[in-house]
């Protein structure tokens, strides 16, 4: 893996503030975009700027073909069938689509239980809070081990015949622990529950195969895997999606419409009401090509090396506390930390001001989890394929210096 060559594909890495380049360590929030993806997205506007599945003209046909190809690419990327891949606005909307659809079919009752973990992102917590609130169902939480991995014994103790759904993050966006989703899906199915996996933090970094995992639904964001913003992906098992109601209604998702009733389109279009994000879908195809060309196993190995290096450097800094499993096999490339002397926001601002180092601070859209560790929030540095050891050196040096200055 030639990092220098990879970095040349990301023009934004050349952007300077006050004469200094930015060190981008906020990849868990959104990844940077390579020029291949930017060009692919532009190509829609330059070459086939037409609506899909509507016109009979050549431009519309080309746009439709490319949009459908994006579904096929995404399906192949996660080992699914094309009709099992629904494009949404983002990962949050993917999860909401499942929630609203299940809700509309009366899937939950007051006796039902929904099982989520303590480390969920708001996207995989708030929708289920709402589902529980609206139906009287009970929302239960799987506890964590002291090393922030999922307590599987607690999971097995809590799942029962009333559990209708297990919604779990594949990799946490805060403590970064990787959950054994294959095992979780198996146990959920044995209890008769559905299993939804939030894979926003795993799909960009590791090979994800929906068949291997066996989950009923899997959601992820495109902008976290080098793609454009405004596009999310929902995988759903074909037999389930066929039975489920759409949650958005309008054009594109219908087969026929009369004044009093409508028939739904075939999968996956049944779940894609209105004009979809066509340009972004072309960008997704390019992002998948880019990731495949480098190889996800290579990327994962690079992430691991960076993470281990970051841990090594940060362990040497006094007054820093890290909230991760601290084992690169058990977690994604994220370091969640706090300092004794500076608040998370102060530290993030100081890192940015001192050396243009972009890290995230606060609750990280996982307030219950983060506030249980520090009510004022935490700092997070997250790495990806274009980050280097030199950047981590600068990050660690700056961090160490700032903590000495503001002691």
């Amino acid at each position, binding site marked *: 893996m030639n990092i220098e060559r990879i970095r040349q594909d990301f023009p934004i890495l050349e952007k300077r503030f006050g004469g200094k380049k930015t060190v981008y360590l906020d990849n868990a929030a959104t990844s940077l975009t390579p020029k291949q993806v930017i060009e692919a997205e532009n190509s829609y506007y330059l070459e086939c700027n037409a609506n899909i599945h509507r016109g009979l003209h050549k431009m519309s046909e080309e746009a439709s073909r490319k949009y459908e190809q994006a579904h096929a690419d995404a399906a192949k990327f996660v080992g699914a069938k094309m009709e099992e891949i629904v494009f949404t606005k983002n990962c949050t909307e993917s999860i909401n689509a499942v929630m609203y659809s299940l809700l509309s079919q009366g899937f939950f009752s007051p006796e039902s239980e929904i099982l989520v973990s303590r480390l969920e992102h708001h996207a995989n917590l708030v929708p289920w809070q709402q589902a529980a609130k609206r139906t009287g169902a009970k929302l239960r939480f799987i506890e964590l081990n002291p090393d922030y991995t999922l307590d599987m014994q607690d999971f097995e103790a809590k799942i029962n015949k009333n559990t209708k759904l297990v919604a779990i993050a594949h990799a946490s966006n805060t403590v970064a622990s990787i959950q054994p989703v294959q095992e979780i899906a198996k146990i959920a199915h044995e209890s008769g529950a559905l299993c939804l996996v939030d894979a926003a933090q795993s799909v960009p970094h590791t090979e994800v195969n929906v068949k291997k995992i066996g989950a009923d639904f899997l959601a992820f964001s495109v902008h976290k895997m080098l793609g454009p913003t405004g596009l999310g992906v929902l995988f759903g098992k074909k037999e389930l999606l066929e039975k489920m109601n759409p949650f958005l209604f309008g054009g594109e998702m219908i087969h026929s419409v009369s004044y009093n009733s409508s028939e739904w389109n075939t999968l996956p279009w049944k779940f894609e009401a209105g004009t979809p994000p066509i340009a972004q879908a072309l960008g997704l195809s390019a992002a998948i090509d880019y990731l495949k060309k480098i190889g996800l196993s290579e990327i994962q190995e690079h992430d691991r090396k960076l993470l281990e290096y970051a841990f090594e450097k940060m362990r040497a800094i006094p007054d820093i506390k890290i909230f991760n499993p601290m084992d690169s096999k058990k977690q994604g490339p994220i370091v969640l930390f706090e300092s004794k002397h500076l608040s998370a*926001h*102060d530290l993030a*601002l*100081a890192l940015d001001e*001192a050396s243009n180092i972009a890290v995230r601070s606060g609750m990280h859209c996982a307030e219950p989890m983060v506030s249980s560790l520090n009510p004022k929030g935490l700092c997070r540095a997250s790495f990806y394929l274009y980050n280097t050891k030199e950047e981590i050196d600068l990050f660690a040096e700056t961090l160490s210096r*700032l903590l000495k*200055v*503001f002691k």
Partner: protein
Amino acid sequence: MVFCFVALGIFAVAGIFSARYRQFAKEAFSCAFRRITLRKCTTDFDNKMKMKISTSIAKKSPKAGNFIYKNFTLLSWILVIITLASLVYGVYGLYNFLAFGNCNGPNSDGTCIYSEIVTPECDCGAVGCNEEQYYGTCDYNCECVKERCRQA
């Protein structure tokens, strides 16, 4: 924190010349407005400025950076008090200028900033000076001297 009140004045002026400072001015205004209306500032503006200023200074002098970081609230209050005192003094001077023709009060011929702003580049001399000339621009028939015309 009260830094937004000081920052509003500084960035409002700096914002005339730079879009970057215009954004800071907007944030400072929003923050100051919320404070005046007894609400919590939602932009975290004061803290943002505290870190920007103290980190920038710490690059050159870590001790000074640390001092500003630790005493930012106190320093902000000092700046607010100085700003308010200047404002009161300025308004008092303006009143004197309008009432007596000099911002230092009656019977004073000390330097007055308003005279420099309001007075034309050259003024008519005492000889032949009348009320019209006093309020008007310099008459080309008058001989211009630095001394300002005075009402009898």
